[in-house]
């Protein structure tokens, strides 16, 4: 009796298992698009106002259009939906829209659509994720059906930098189906149309033949999220996917050795070591901060740990930030001088300091290795660091609670505009670890200067001042690395977006 029952049960289990497997195995999916892009993460939502996630932007930018776009050299803006633009007065940016552009459902893309996009994003009721990013803008005004003005609260030199990411959405469609449905089945004016989304498996987009810039070069593109680095690289090597993001630095050599695969790079995060100049006694002294800059061998970090895929920085400005001055020398590696300066500042025997870092924080490459190397170099001049490796969220919390003495940090957002200078170093914004009226004054002047020449001039002054005052240990700007199959023409772009409309595939 027992025996029969147990056999029946086992049979049921096995039958269930087999049935499950057979039912579960749907259609095969080997190559379901002309170009397949694999990023770490899946799309979060197709509603561009509800996300600030890079992987998601990279998918959405193929469905929607923006007013302007950063040129490929990263130095200027070129028109997209905007045919031309001008600064009417200090706080009014006016755009003339291209006529005849239609959303994929036939709706006109006009000034009203632009206003709707902005207004709905800023509507407090909707609690959009992008709202904080656009706080500098007061309102959007429709001047005529194809002319639209963005009004800022005060002169805002980097308005275009912000607006290059504003994806225009179709008011009629959204009013018809509602935001929730729109977030799942989007309609835009972009080069590709939404076709299919299987969560965590793939997003498939197909060519929009009526695209105002002409048909895209391929019929379909797909985004396949693969979170694990090793698996993503394997998929590229195997040819299952054509483009992968976030290639880790320790896999560079292997990819260079793979036939049919190349590496595409763009300038990525600025990595620096923040110092608490407000509460931690030694760092209150400028000489100590400078001494630490002499004590760290950033060139060696670039060469040995980042394998040359980084650019040494001579201050807090990115090479594309207006006012960046390449003539200013970076702090040379000079431990003897560092020791002397520490002694003069009253620390002949150095001091103890806690050094917080998180391995892949904000995309820092080889975070732990960099931290350990820096700790070793500082040890040679008598500064004894206690490494504290934390999880990203924990580091963020401690950072904003002003609890850190010294921390490895990275900044990526809109480097071309110098916005990080305001966010990180102005006492009115974060001011967590550095507050200096001199710097504040220069930064204010820098952002009020709408004329580029004037901005560059103030920028150079700011650059020299901050390099001297050394609120951070300046390190380098690392590269974002992508793996690309050699038969795909895509290159990484400085605006951080992956537009696929001009990309083609050769057999």
């Amino acid at each position: 009796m027992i025996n029969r029952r147990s056999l029946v049960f086992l049979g049921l289990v096995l039958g269930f298992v087999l049935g499950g497997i057979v039912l579960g195995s749907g259609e095969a999916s080997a190559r379901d698009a002309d170009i397949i892009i694999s990023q770490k993460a899946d799309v979060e939502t197709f509603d561009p106002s509800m996300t600030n996630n890079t992987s998601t932007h990279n998918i959405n930018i193929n469905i929607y259009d923006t007013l302007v776009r950063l040129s490929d050299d990263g130095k200027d803006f070129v028109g997209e939906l905007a045919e031309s633009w001008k600064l009417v007065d200090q706080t009014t940016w006016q755009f003339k829209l291209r006529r005849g552009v239609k959303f994929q459902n036939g709706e006109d893309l006009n000034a009203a659509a632009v206003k709707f996009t902005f207004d709905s994003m800023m509507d407090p009721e909707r609690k959009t994720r992008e709202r904080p990013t656009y706080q500098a803008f007061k309102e959007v005004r429709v001047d005529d059906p194809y002319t639209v003005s963005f009004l800022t609260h005060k002169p805002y030199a980097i308005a275009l930098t912000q607006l290059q990411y504003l994806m225009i959405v179709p008011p009629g469609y959204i009013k018809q189906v509602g935001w929730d449905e729109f977030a799942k089945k989007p309609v835009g004016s972009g080069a590709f149309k939404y076709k299919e989304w299987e969560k965590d498996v793939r997003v498939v987009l197909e060519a929009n033949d009526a695209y105002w810039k002409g048909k895209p070069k391929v019929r379909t593109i797909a985004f396949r999220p693969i979170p694990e680095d090793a698996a993503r690289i394997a998929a590229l090597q195997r040819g299952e996917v054509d483009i992968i993001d976030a290639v880790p630095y320790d896999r560079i050599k292997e990819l260079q050795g793979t036939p049919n695969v190349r590496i595409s790079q763009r300038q990525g995060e600025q990595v620096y070591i923040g110092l608490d100049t407000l509460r931690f006694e030694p760092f209150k002294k400028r000489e100590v901060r400078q001494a630490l800059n002499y004590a760290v061998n950033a060139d060696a970090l670039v060469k040995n740990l980042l394998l040359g895929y980084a650019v040494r920085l001579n201050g807090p400005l990115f090479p594309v930030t207006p006012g960046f001055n390449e003539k200013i020398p970076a702090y040379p590696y000079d431990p003897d001088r560092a020791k002397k300066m520490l002694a003069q500042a009253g620390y002949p025997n150095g001091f103890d300091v806690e050094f917080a870092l998180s391995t892949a924080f904000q995309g820092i490459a080889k975070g732990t290795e960099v931290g350990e190397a820096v700790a070793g170099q500082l040890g040679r001049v008598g500064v004894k660091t206690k490494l504290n490796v934390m999880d990203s969220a924990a580091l963020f919390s401690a950072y904003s609670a002003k609890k850190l003495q010294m921390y490895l940090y990275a900044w990526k957002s809109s480097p071309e505009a110098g916005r990080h200078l305001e966010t990180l170093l102005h006492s009115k914004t974060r001011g967590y670890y550095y507050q200096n009226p001199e710097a504040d004054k220069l930064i204010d002047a820098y952002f009020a200067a709408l004329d580029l020449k004037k901005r560059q001039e103030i920028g150079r002054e700011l650059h020299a001042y901050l390099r001297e005052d050394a609120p951070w240990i300046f390190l380098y700007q690392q590269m974002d690395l992508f793996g690309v199959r050699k038969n795909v023409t895509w290159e990484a772009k400085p605006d951080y977006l992956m537009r696929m409309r001009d990309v083609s595939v050769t057999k």
Partner: protein
Amino acid sequence: MRRYILRRLAQAILVIVGVSLVVFFVIRLSGDPTYLLLSAEATEADRARFAREEGFDRPLYVQYAEFMRRALRGDLGRSLRYRQPALPLVLERLPATVELALAALFVSLLVAIPAGVISAVRRDTAYDNLTMLGALFGQSMPVFWLGIMLILIFSVRLELLPTSGRGGLDHLILPALTLGLYSTARVTRLVRAGMLDVIGQDYIRTAQAKGLPDRRVIVKHALRNTLIPVITIVGLELGTLLGGAVITETIFAWPGIGRLAVTAIFQRDYPLVQATVLVTALIFVLSNLLVDLLYGWLDPRIRYT
């Protein structure tokens, strides 16, 4: 019997409430989601507003009470990241996780039962030693390493199977092997031990004494009696496989609950973490209960009190 089931269900509710308490408070201790969710430029005022809008500025016990009140009505909140109700996000990934867990279980039973039986019958032979060594490796090999190795060998080198993702049957093989290996090793050991135990029993000697062929003794008499504890373990393993596929799903980009949980944890998506953990806990508790009930059905000597 009915009283037993009611008591077990009451216990299950207690367990779920306990789990909800732990996950609710632990995820909140581990870091603030505003830094991960808002853009890098967001100011303190933005963060404060976000916390107010999501209700994170209220005392924790108030937040928990609110969470439980809604949970009782089946509403586990909205995911901060996806901006959609959390429970459906979890449930729609359940089929993928179930598929993978069942496949892993199938693989492990297919290998483990014959391997364990042969091992017991040929005790202390080279075969037995090799199997036990293999089982030891199977139980101690890190899932992560195994998964990557399988990808490198079968996908990149031999180009036999896809590297990752969900699709046809071929997509299922590597993750199922990876996930099933630990269970395979465990069940093999269990079957072997059980068989050795049974083989020493009087009724086996009786069967042999009355001249039945060896094969028949082993399959019909010994194996059948070994299978009862195996079935218990299989039930428990299924619970573990369903909840424990976190690493495997991440490596193979398998669109299941485990991978969703990992992403949600890294992003401090509180409502989504709570929903994934609660659903997993519920599956585990229910599968345990089911196994206990089945056990009694299979072996009437067991009485529920």
